[in-house]
């Protein structure tokens, strides 16, 4: 028998109030082992208060070839940004 342990992506919440952030990966045979490995590998210096592990093969990534289709349409929607609107200096609290 020769079955390699799958790869898991590790996400750490540095402190409450922040989102989980991708920090790296570990190999583990099961989810609990992945959590423990993530704890032992990525939080040795008090880097986190919560962990997520996700099997790497469960992640679907966008294709860089579609970068233009996916992300460029947002470029001309400047009206979504507050700085698009000119408000006179004497108007406050807006």
């Amino acid at each position: 028998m020769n079955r390699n342990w799958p790869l898991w992506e590790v996400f750490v919440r540095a402190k409450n109030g922040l989102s989980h952030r991708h920090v790296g990966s570990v190999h583990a045979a099961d989810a609990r082992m992945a959590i423990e490995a993530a704890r032992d590998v990525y939080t040795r210096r008090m880097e986190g208060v919560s962990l997520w592990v996700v099997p790497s093969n469960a992640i679907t990534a966008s294709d860089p070839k579609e970068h233009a289709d996916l992300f460029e349409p947002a470029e001309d929607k400047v009206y979504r940004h507050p700085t698009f609107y000119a408000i006179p200096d004497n108007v406050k609290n807006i």
Partner: protein
Amino acid sequence: MLPDATLADYALRLGDDSLVLGQRLSEWCGHAPMLEIDLALSNIALDLIGQASHFLKFAGRAEGRGRDADSFAFRRDALDFRNCLLVEQPNGDFAQTMARQFLFSNWQELLFAQLQHSANDTLADIARKAVKEVAYHAHFANEWMVRLGDGTEESRARTIAGLEWMWRFTGELFERDPALKPLVDAGVAVDVPSLRPDWEDRISRTLAEARLELPKPRRWVMGGRVGHHSEHLGHLLSEMQFLQRAYPGAMW
């Protein structure tokens, strides 16, 4: 504080358990089955060495003869070590190492859970911090027992052999020592026989999940608490204490 030989002796038992097991686990560093396991075993060893430093330092204060943690760790011979026989057993293969961890950490967690309410503030403080560490060690070992017991034929056979090796040393963990009676009565030390029901419950539950049998009752091998150790401890000490012995008085 006033010198208290019994209290010092008790602190040595607690410290030596952690020290000797930490030393054993550190032997794995760089040789584990997977890098992830290497990091995990080192973390456990680091926790244990930290605990040992605290307990041995306190033993020095209780003894009142100016000895520090290092002089206890590096300049005592086997007869003066107070650890249980279980922790000094050789690592063997990974199954044997996990069997030792499983039997010991489940006991140590229950012990520290009580010790954190000790009438002695220092012991209580050390235990309060350590109990969280040890809960993780027990958790880690329990899961590995299940994986190995209910893994392959080979892992099952190795785990049974590992448990078989370690089992005879577990009786010592629950042995009431008359010498500690004053400390137990004063609410300073934990009355270890009281830990047995919870421990057996934990052990049996994990073994059932691992589809393993509880090893047969047998005559216990004991003596660690009075300095009568297995042959393994002398070798462990000769390695650990080499520099301090070869260069007496040097600072490192």
